[in-house]
């Protein structure tokens, strides 16, 4: 096994341990679990960045010219962006899901690791050092936003289930209730010792989860916009047209429109919350299709499968 493969296995192992630790933190709020999970997250993404640098410096080949390299960066950037937001907004409870996805994508990247191949002519451009990291960072942001939306949906439907169990009528929401996220059914069930309610109560309020998702998407969308712009500029230099309705371009535009719609609809009270959480979740599926589906399933200008 080569050194870079050993490094990537270290990263995957760190992510898996971190996943267990931070899932434990999500369920139990154990500080010990958090103290184990955070260094694992840091170690995992540091190892992946080191692996990319190692590949680049030993082969003198830019490491993001294939799916293996870009998936490695995707996993590492997802964890970096998660750590950034977690430090700012105390989101460590989301870490288990983020690290699990990072471990999954890292493991999947290994199936595309064919060794060291120099870039094909179309990829021999300085734009690859700008466009690809931008787009991958945008994808990574959307992964973190997806996890946050997922937690919103879990909490929302958990509360709905608890509401269905209780016979007491739900008081009408007041502006104050919206702000503090009062959930009487949840509080009652938690007070009665309901395990699900006790756990749901440890999560931030729905409105806070909604705002967390919004903030992450608000980082991802400008990155994706910049990625599309730089990609268009590169396409103009390489292929003669900044936009050719290639499958990748179209899929990226569709994803961009979905997240733009998300941010527009988030300004409307009726759409903020549940509907926006679904849009964010759906948006990430479109990103996965744009990133992997198009690269693997559809032949086009972006089909750099090896």
């Amino acid at each position, binding site marked *: 096994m080569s050194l870079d493969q050993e490094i990537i296995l270290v990263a995957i192992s760190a992510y898996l341990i971190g996943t267990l630790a931070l899932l434990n933190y999500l369920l139990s709020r154990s500080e010990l679990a958090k103290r184990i999970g955070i260094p694992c997250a840091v170690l995992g993404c540091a190892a992946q960045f080191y692996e990319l640098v190692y590949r680049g410096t030993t082969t003198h080949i830019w490491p993001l010219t294939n799916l293996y390299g870009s998936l490695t960066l995707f996993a590492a950037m997802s964890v970096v962006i998660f750590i950034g937001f977690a430090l700012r907004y105390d989101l460590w409870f989301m870490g288990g899901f983020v690290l699990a996805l990072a471990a999954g994508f890292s493991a999947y990247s290994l199936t595309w*690791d*064919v*060794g*060291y*191949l*120099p870039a*094909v*002519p*179309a990829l*021999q*451009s300085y734009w690859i050092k700008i466009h690809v990291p931008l787009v991958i960072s945008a994808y990574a942001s959307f992964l973190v936003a997806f996890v946050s939306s997922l937690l919103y949906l879990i909490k929302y439907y958990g509360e709905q289930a608890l509401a269905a169990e209780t016979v007491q009528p739900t008081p009408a929401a007041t*502006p*104050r209730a*919206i*702000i*503090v996220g009062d959930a009487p059914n949840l509080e009652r069930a938690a007070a009665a010792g309901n395990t699900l309610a006790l756990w749901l109560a440890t999560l931030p309020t729905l*409105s*806070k989860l*909604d*705002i967390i998702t*919004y903030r992450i998407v*608000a980082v991802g*969308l*400008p990155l994706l*916009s*910049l990625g599309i*712009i730089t990609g*268009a*500029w590169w396409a*103009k*230099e*390489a*292929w*003669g*047209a*900044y936009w050719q*309705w290639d*499958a990748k371009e*179209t899929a990226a535009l*569709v994803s961009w*429109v979905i997240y733009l*719609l998300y*941010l*527009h609809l*988030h*300004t*409307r*009270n009726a759409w*903020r919350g549940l509907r926006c959480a679904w849009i964010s979740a759906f948006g990430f599926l479109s990103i996965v299709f744009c990133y992997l589906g198009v690269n693997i399933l559809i032949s086009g200008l972006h089909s750099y499968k*090896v």
Partner: protein
Amino acid sequence: MESASKAGPGTLRGWLDEQFGDLLWQLSNFWFGMTLLGIWGFMTLLGVVIDQGKDPASYFDAYPAPLARLVLRLHLDNIYHGTAYVALIGFIIACMTLATFKRVIPARLPPLHPVKIDKVPLNATITLPGDPAGVRERVAAFFSDKGFLVRKRELGGVEWTFADQHNWARRGVLIAHLGFVIVAIGTTLYWASGYSGETAIVTGTEATIPQNGTRLKLDRFAYEFQPIRTRNGLVYQPIDYVSNLEVAPRGGAFQSRVLRVNEPLNVDGTLYYQSSYGVALSLRLTRNGKPEAGSPSAPLKEGDAFPVGATTRVIRYERFVGTIDKSGGIGPDPRPNKPGAILDVFDGEQPIGRALVPIGRDLDLGNGYRIAATGFTFFSGIQYRHDPGIPFVALGAFVLLAGLVISFHFLPARLYVRVDATAGGSQVSLAATTVKGFEIFEEQFADLVEALKLGLGLGPSSEPENAGT
């Protein structure tokens, strides 16, 4: 609902103004705009699914006849340049402009008016000693120091202080929409006065670009493949494609230029790109050992065909094979080590055979006919494009991006502050609203209240007094 009836109700002018106002209001509706965007998306998708700008016959080859006729009659073969598509984009932009000016900006720049502090979800009250006028000044100075735009108004007999944060960012949406308009101007410029195309030039020959008269002569085309051992086996990785050209603008002399992928040539504002390459095949048709009339006079490109003498048979050059392996099959090395060509034979439109013919060898076609692959030469596929709209598209894209960043990363918020006299001094009442709801400002509001208390000489407290957060 807005209505403009300056001419007064009941008059024709007033009625027309009202109808016009109604129309503009409907056109600026969010869901109307979204519906237009959906139609645009559908039309765009049609353009992706249906090959654009092809020969009419190719649609009959690709689709059942009724569908092909539909594509051609509805001009779906050239959807992006159709009047409907361009008009739709113009309509979307017009609706975006209307929405920006009639709905977004008015909603984001509400007039200064009093609010019921305790009814606003984000609210707090602070009591402190001191006369209200002095406290009001200190509160105003606090928010000014924090970078807020502070304005004072006396409304309904009460002195209000309004403190706005990132007020300028309320125009982010306008900037983003302006970016769309600039991009649209750029694409319209290309649509109106740009051109593009592709030409394939065989080594040693010359091509003229019809739109600008530039002549291109291909001296040499070369490619480089590197055999690389990977974990999946041996891969022949393309490394470089390069055309050595002689280029002469209309009325100018030839100059030597080198064209590579990612390194376009700029000749008088038109860019030339190395887009593809291929191998042209020289073939000689004989019958009973004598050259046959109708033998191809020029090398064929992949996909070209020619008839076999007076028969109904047709030979089509399918593709070039760089290396024929020891078993006579297609080797993995694309470089011309032991080259050959795959030829398909048709009787009418019916395929009757396929053969891999080594270069320098011939193939018996029956009835005394033989076809020989006598040689090969490279041709270079070159795209060209003249796009006067590029600077506008680039500028528009960055204006759009700036608008997005302003809209999503700078939160315009307004604080409503009133200071009332109490028995022991003054009571400061604050409420906050933002253009993105209340939750997003909750933490910052709590921090501001704490900072204000410190600024007013009160000690920090674990709970803001009567804070509605």
